[in-house]
């Protein structure tokens, strides 16, 4: 318990430390990585628990983001409050999850992967093209001027002033996202240890044997799709409100793949693994932005385009990490030890 409290204090202080040492942009990066963490936790329900390989997960993020964007921007002149649109976005995404999940229930492994990938791409193509003849999504330009995340008069996207203390916007957002992440984490860990979570894991391990102990496998698979998608939709809404702008470009296959990597890299089906994986993969590319500086230090000039080099190193990191630790960075032995201490 003591350990938990000191961890909480550290997490609460982190943005301030970063803000004063590394600057605002780094806090912003951490804000985004919290969103990624939420997405990873959602995908972890689908891939990690239920074992359903979903390569189009970003679509649910997109649904949530566009729901938010359409219901609180000049696009249709609608400006509903946060506490209404976030749930709408989450429910819409969840419905999409069930809708897309239903026809794929019979599919296994790689087939499922490719169909979900297809669904993801279809949604993106629609977002890209639903601008004519009726303009819904505003096409590739996307939707801008989205209302900021706000509760009544508290606008998280702006700095808040309490007496003498001024909390910068990126730190407000940090706390808001942190709250969302913590809630998601509590929900997922409770699910993991519940009858529902066990049913998912049983399906993941052996679907047939699971059905033979009375698990309605189709229902539970749909449930996993729906819940995972709901979490994706929720983070999508937060994303839209944070950015103030959405466009189809943010929802490419590469993003789905990235989130899958986050889930697998840390050790899927296991929340600490997902946390490590998503933080690592969302922060690593940003750290690698510094390659221009390193090059100057090493060679006295920039030899290779830093944007390229960054992605090359990221790709290499993925390959090497998998070669070294194919079961993920947080090994399952840890999980076992933890269970024995229960």
């Amino acid at each position: 318990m003591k350990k938990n409290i000191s961890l909480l204090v550290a997490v609460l202080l982190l943005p301030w430390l970063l803000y004063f040492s590394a600057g605002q942009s780094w806090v912003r990066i951490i804000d985004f990585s919290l969103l990624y963490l939420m997405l990873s936790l959602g995908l972890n329900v689908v891939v990690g628990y239920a074992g359903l390989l979903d390569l189009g997960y970003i679509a649910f993020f997109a649904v949530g983001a566009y729901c938010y964007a359409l219901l609180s921007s000049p696009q249709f002149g609608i400006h509903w409050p946060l506490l209404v649109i976030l749930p709408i976005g989450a429910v819409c995404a969840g419905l999409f999850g069930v809708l897309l999940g239903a026809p794929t229930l019979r599919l296994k492994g790689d087939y499922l992967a490719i169909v979900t990938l297809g669904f993801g791409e279809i949604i993106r193509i629609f977002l890209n093209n639903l601008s004519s003849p009726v303009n819904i999504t505003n096409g590739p330009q996307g939707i801008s001027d989205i209302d900021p995340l706000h509760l009544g008069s508290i606008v998280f996207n702006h700095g808040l002033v309490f007496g003498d203390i001024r909390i910068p916007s990126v730190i407000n957002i940090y706390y808001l996202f942190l709250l969302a992440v913590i809630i998601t984490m509590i929900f997922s860990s409770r699910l993991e240890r519940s009858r529902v979570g066990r049913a998912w894991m049983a399906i993941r391990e052996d679907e047939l044997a699971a059905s033979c102990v009375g698990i309605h496998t189709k229902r539970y698979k749909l449930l996993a799709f729906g819940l995972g998608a709901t979490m994706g939709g929720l983070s999508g809404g937060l994303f839209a409100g944070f950015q103030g702008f959405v466009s189809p470009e943010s929802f490419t296959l590469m993003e789905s793949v990235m989130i899958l990597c986050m889930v697998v890299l840390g050790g899927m089906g296991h929340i600490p693994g997902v946390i490590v994986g998503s933080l690592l993969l969302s922060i690593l590319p940003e750290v690698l932005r510094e390659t221009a500086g390193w090059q100057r230090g090493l060679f006295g000039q920039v030899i290779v385009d830093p944007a390229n080099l960054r992605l090359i190193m990221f790709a290499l990191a993925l390959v090497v990490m998998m070669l070294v630790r194919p079961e993920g960075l947080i090994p399952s032995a840890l999980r076992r030890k933890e269970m024995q201490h229960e």
Partner: protein
Amino acid sequence: MSTFWQQVVNGLTLGSIYALVALGYTMVYGIMELINFAHGDVVMVGALIALSVSELLIHQGLSLPLALSIAIMVSVLVCMVLGWTIEKIAYRPLRHAPKLAPLITAIGLSLLLQQIAALIWGKSYLPFSHTLTTTSWSWHGVVISALQLDIFGLSLLLMFLLWHLVHHSKLGRAMRATAQSVAFAQLMGVNTDRVISQTFVIGSALAAVAGVMDVMYYAVGNYTMGFLLGLKAFTAAVLGGIGNLKGAMLGGLLLGVVEALGAGYIGDITHGFFGSNYKDVFAFLVLILVLIFKPNGLLGSNTQEKV
């Protein structure tokens, strides 16, 4: 009616390129049950190498056919080496790892190849300005160019050769045995490591040729071109029944035709609500429908799980 046949001709051309790439996916999947996500990027490497080499040789004063032949050979060779290396470094060590691990290295490799290509060739679209021939034939309003015929013919020839190799050679027999069961193939004295290597090499050679065709057909190349092409080719492989050679060929051609027809007619059908900008949707739509109604693909065998 002429629009219809024109789209079929265009679709078959495109489809034969898909089919060649799909063969690479399907062979690897058939043997190792692995989606080689980097395969599309091998196509891209093949395409860009051929593009550069032929430009260079033409600049040196070589005739176009000669330059192009050399370029194709160089790109096939480079891709074979590339395929071999990819398998050796990134997949072989993970053969007994959890199933998602090789998928991630594959994704990493795909990104790696794209970025290295971006370093070498830059990020802009590279034009391929030479045409072997501008000859074309018109028949009742349907135009077929010599290039289309070349692409289609060469694809068929390669598919036939591959078919022959798999069914009438010692390597082919070893490949089929390995696809059935790696363990049993080993017991029968098959060097399965070598077979898997060779499968990657053959698949990559086909990918290189497909890449060259793509560059010639669209007259443009780019470091990201492998992505969508690879995705569609994989779709084609699944459509036909992954692991099945005939399925990949059929799936490729079919996907090409469906896509061309879809792009050609969607505007009319929906009274202009959807335009040809939705053409990429068709590939996925077809795939989803097939998998829902025939989950093992068109030619895949309907295996019941053994209990």
